[in-house]
Structures are given as structure tokens and as C-alpha cells.
């Protein structure tokens, strides 16, 4: 803002070339008076505090993780062991990485198409009032805490999975992926389905926002050319919203990767990798931390922090990627508007 607000130098008596450039700049930034200076300091300090917190998270996690990994006798990335308080301590994240990735892939495979479907339903298919109401309800569902999803998953979903598991085993068991030996259905597949249900609302919300911003003219142009509703969506809505869908999915993925309590309550973890998604096998980073924390020694805690650091880095990459896609899209659509 180019307004000099200093009462000592009324704007009515301008002195040409007088205030040095530096002062003018400071005046323009509104930092000439003590009140302004204090306020600027406070607000800038808060901004810096946010950066400091992020740096501290990285620093302290790395420090504790380093303490653990330097003691680790097994290979941290490839070992199937988790015995950090043994002598010598041996632990690795291979099983956790496997479980986290597999359950997230299942969750994404289920949640993304369905969420995009719901988002399209809300913006392009449902009557306007119904669409608004559904959007509102889905907004509210995004606020349901994960512990409640976990409780529902463990006490309601798990007992209802027997039918599906038996069916998959009967018809697809020959693939090896869907073999079921008949134990409680607390496996990676159940976890994946539960995670899918949990990330549905957020992916739906973000994609809906993007679909709503599709320029009306694009759609009407397609309609005027005689396109059916599906062709309108395929030719104008989806191309416009593609990056939005990708970033929405990545936000959902970030949430699925870091989900703790729901997974800890539903999965019966074994520290092992199993080719079948229906039999127990695998764990996730977050679930392992929650389940092993209680009996962990100091060394055990440091080992858990080391696995948490890996999770932190993964979610950082996923979320940073999603934000960068969104930011790029903003510039792009801004130039186009």
C-alpha cells in the first residue's frame, strides 16, 4: 500500500525526493510506529514459529531415529525382524512398508473411483437441492474421528466380512492373492476397505470443489454440439478437473498412510509378509507404533520413532506433491480465466 500514514509528515506537504528510499519502503510496509513494529514482529514471529516447528519435528525425529538405527544390527530397510530391545537389537521396516503400501493401494483403488462418482453425482447428476444436502452430509462425515471408524470397523465391519472373504476365496482363491485360511477377517484387505471408507469424504469434497469450478462455457459448448451428459463430463469436466482429482487423491493417500487407530483396532498384526490379502500378514507404520508403544523400552521407542520418521518423510512427499499440483493448477486456471 502506498499510503504514508505518519502524522508527523502530513501528505499535504510533500517534499520531493526527501524521504530516503529505505524509509519510504518501511512506511509502505506500515512498520514505522512502535505499535506497527510490535504487531509486525508478533505476526512474523508466529510465521517463523511454524517453520521452526517443522524444522524441529524433522530434527528431533532424525536425532532419535539416528540413535536407534546406529545400534540396529539388522538392515533397517530390508529386515523382517522387529526386536529393538533384544541383544543385539534387530529391527527393520520391510513388513511395515509392505503393509502400509498394500493397504493404501487397496484403499485408493476403491475410494478414488467411488469418490469421483459421488462428486460427479453431486455436481452434475443430482437435483440441485439434493446435491447440496449430500455435500453437507459428506462434509460432516469427514469430521467423524478415526477412532469411531475403528470401533465400527472392528465391531461391525469385521464380523460382516466373512461372507465377502468366503466368496473371494471360492472364486478368486486360485490367484493366491485372495486365498483365505478361514481366520478372523482382520487382514490387510479389511483394513484397505475401512481406509477407503474413511478417505471417501475428503476425496469427494476436494473433487467436488474442482468440478464446480469447471467453466460453464466449456460444458455448454459441448452440450450445444450435441454431446450427451457423459460426453460432456468426459470432454470438459474430467480434463479440467484431472489435476484436481490427482491432488485430492494424494491428500486422501496421505491420510490413509498415516491412519493409526482404525488400523490398530482392525488389523491383527503379524510381523510377516503374506502373499494373500485375506490372511493375517503385515502391519502399517502408524499401527505398529500404536500397538508396540506400551511395552517398548527406550530403545524400542527410538526404533518406533525411526519408523515414524520414514512415515513422516513419505507423507511429506505425498502432501507436498499434492500441494504443488494444486498450486500449478491455480496459476494455470488463473491465466485461463
Amino acid at each position: 500500500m502506498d499510503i504514508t500514514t505518519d502524522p508527523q509528515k502530513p501528505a499535504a506537504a510533500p517534499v520531493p525526493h526527501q524521504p530516503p528510499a529505505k524509509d519510504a519502503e518501511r512506511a509502505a510496509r506500515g512498520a514505522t510506529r512502535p505499535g506497527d513494529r510490535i504487531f509486525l514482529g508478533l505476526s512474523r514471529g508466529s510465521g517463523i514459529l511454524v517453520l521452526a516447528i517443522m524444522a524441529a519435528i524433522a530434527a528431533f525425529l532424525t536425532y532419535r531415529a539416528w540413535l536407534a538405527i546406529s545400534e540396529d544390527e539388522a538392515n533397517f530397510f530390508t529386515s523382517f525382524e522387529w526386536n529393538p530391545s533384544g541383544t543385539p537389537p534387530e529391527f527393520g521396516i520391510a513388513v511395515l512398508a509392505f503393509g502400509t503400501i498394500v493397504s493404501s493401494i487397496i484403499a485408493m483403488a476403491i475410494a478414488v473411483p467411488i469418490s469421483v462418482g459421488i462428486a460427479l453425482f453431486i455436481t452434475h447428476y443430482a437435483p440441485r437441492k439434493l446435491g447440496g444436502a449430500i455435500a453437507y452430509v459428506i462434509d460432516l462425515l469427514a469430521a467423524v474421528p478415526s477412532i469411531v471408524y475403528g470401533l465400527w470397523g472392528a465391531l461391525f465391519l469385521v464380523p460382516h466380512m466373512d461372507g465377502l472373504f468366503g466368496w473371494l476365496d471360492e472364486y478368486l482363491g486360485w490367484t493366491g492373492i485372495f486365498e483365505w485360511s478361514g481366520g478372523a477377517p482382520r487382514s490387510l484387505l479389511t483394513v484397505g476397505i475401512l481406509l477407503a471408507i474413511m478417505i471417501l469424504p475428503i476425496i469427494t469434497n476436494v473433487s467436488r470443489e474442482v468440478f464446480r469450478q469447471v467453466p460453464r462455457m466449456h460444458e455448454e459448448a459441448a452440450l450445444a454440439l450435441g454431446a450427451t451428459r457423459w460426453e460432456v463430463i468426459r470432454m470438459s469436466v474430467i480434463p479440467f478437473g484431472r489435476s484436481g482429482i490427482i491432488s485430492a487423491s494424494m491428500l486422501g493417500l496421505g491420510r490413509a498412510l498415516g491412519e493409526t487407530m482404525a488400523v490398530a483396532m482392525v488389523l491383527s498384526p503379524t510381523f510377516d509378509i503374506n502373499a494373500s490379502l485375506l490372511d493375517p500378514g503385515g502391519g502399517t507404520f502408524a499401527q505398529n507404533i500404536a500397538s508396540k508403544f506400551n511395552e517398548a523400552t527406550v530403545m524400542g521407542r527410538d526404533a518406533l520413532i525411526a519408523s515414524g520418521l520414514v512415515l513422516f518423510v513419505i507423507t511429506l512427499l505425498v502432501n507436498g506433491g499434492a500441494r504443488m499440483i494444486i498450486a500449478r493448477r491455480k496459476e494455470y486456471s488463473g491465466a485461463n480465466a
Partner: protein
Amino acid sequence: MSHATLTPKSRSSLRGATLPKWFPWAVAAGATAAGLGISAAAGLNSSIQWALIAVVLFVGGTYAISARIEGGRQAKDRVATSMVWVAFLLALIPLLSLIWETVKQGVKVLDGYFLTHSMGVVADSEPGGGIYHAILGTLEQVGLATLFSVPVGVLTAIYLVEYGRGRLAKAVTFFVDVMTGIPSIVAGLFILSLWVLILDMGPSGIAGSFALCILMIPVVVRSTEEMLKLVPNELREASLALGVPKWRTILKVVLPTSIGGIVTGVMLAVARITGETAPVLLLVWGTDFINANPFQDPQESLPMYIYLQYNAGSDPAYDRAWAAALTLIAFIMILNLVARGIARWKAPKTGR
């Protein structure tokens, strides 16, 4: 909707044959009946199976009939429409089941006694007990976290909107975005490594509050930032033109204009952290007894209570877990509804 213009009521001879409006419903009814019939005949009793058969029949039937009468493009359109409907209904089932199940199971033991008593002398396998200690712990931990987070969050947002240009502001914006995605367990681990392992403090409510702060600050920053951006620039300029210093302009003009939205954002953030379990598990530990002091010794919180009762694994404990879940959802939903109400009521008039 502009689509209405595509299907005028009076069909001219220029358009090809179209199926009547009741066509999808008829196919849906037929597919459901066929699905039920086939599964009854084959002796399948899983509802998933007959529903799956019905869905396949519905989509396939729609395509086949429509392709014959209306042509390929219309048939694809109809299939897409039915897929979108199926996606919607499919998602509705678990989400409604979640709410329904929580309410149905939760009302069993939820009463005045349950809200005003702790688990002090109640064994896990016995009925009785309550969530008083958990409510107390949740209120204290969330209250403390809000107390720390709101000033930091609002000031950061003010910096970004009112002052922020250049590299620092860009970095803050980016890292606030990234911070929104930090898993709660990682926030808990950070405080654990700093507060417990390095500073050698025991579990306490305040340690949990610190972790909740990390989850809350970015949410507050984001929502406040959005709200401050909605304040029309003319208001700021008018105030500055009258010779009001910038900081007073912010305090007396910008903030009051956007206060409704800021309060909404804070309430939504509170609703979010109220349901967090993982940091509490790592830092506050949970207890069956009433501990009103958030600065010392383990405390309970509502989500933690649900987790502990679930782990106890007896039927009365499950009932208590459901009742606590219902309380938690009710609290969060009320916060959400009130927050949205305020947002609608106090929304800055942007002339849209």
C-alpha cells in the same frame, strides 16, 4: 440446469428413438428381482452377492437395451449415469451404517450416570462406570491446545495476508500446507522425543496438548487466511486513508469483519483435534481415575477411553465404548453445525 435444454418434452422426428423416463427404474427393479431370484435359486445367502448380481444385471441390461433402441452413445451415457448412482449408493451404505450403528449401540448405556462417573473402581468386565474423567481430560487438553494454537495460527494468517510478501511468506504458506498433512502419530512422536525422551518429563495432559497444537495450528492458519482474504480491500484503504495505523486497522477493521469466519475455522479445528487418539495414546497414556490436573500424571480423553474400552474386550466394555463414541460424535457434530451456522450468519458480504 442446462442439461434440461437437451431433452425437450416434445420429441421431434429429428431425434432418434428415446426410452421413456421410467426405463432406468424398471431395469433397476427387474435387476433387483433377478438378483434375488438367482441367489435364492443358487442358495446364496450373502446380501453382498445378490446385490452384486443385481448391479451387474442392471448395468448390463441398461447398456444392452439402450444400445439396441437408442444407439451406442446414448447407451454409454446411461451406463455412466447408472455407475454414478451406484457409486453414490455404495458409499452411502457404510457411512450410514456407521452413524446408525453408533447411535443404536451407543444409547444402551448413555445416561446421566454415565456422564458423571469415572471408571475408578469398575472392572473392565463389569457394567457401570462412566466417562466423566474422559470428558474432563478432553476438555482440558483441547482447551490448552486451543489456547496455544489460536494466537499463533491467527497471527500467522495475519502475517501471510497483511504483510507477507517474498520468500518467508511463501515458505510459511508451503509448510503450513504440508503441516496439515502430518499424521497425528508423527506429531505425537515428535513431542515424545522432545518432551519425554530428551526433557525427561512424564506423561501428562499438557504433553498431549502440545501434540494437538501441531495438528491444530495449520488448520487455524488456513481457515483464518481464507477469511482475511475475503475482507474487501476498500475497507482497509478507507481506514488507512483516515490515518489509522496499520496494526489498528487490522485489529479494529479487518479482524472484526472476518471474526465469524475465524471463529468457524477455530471451531472446526477444535472438532478435528477432539477426536485425535494417537498423540494421547503416546503422551497422556489414559487412566481410569479422575485427574483434573493437566500438568502432571496420566489423564484420560474421550477417544482414548473408546480405545481402552475396546481393548478391554468384554461386552459391557464394548457398550461403554459405543456410548463414548456416540458422545464424541455428538460433541463434534454439534461443534460443526454451530460453526457452520456462525459462518453463514456472519459471512462477510462480498457482493456475490
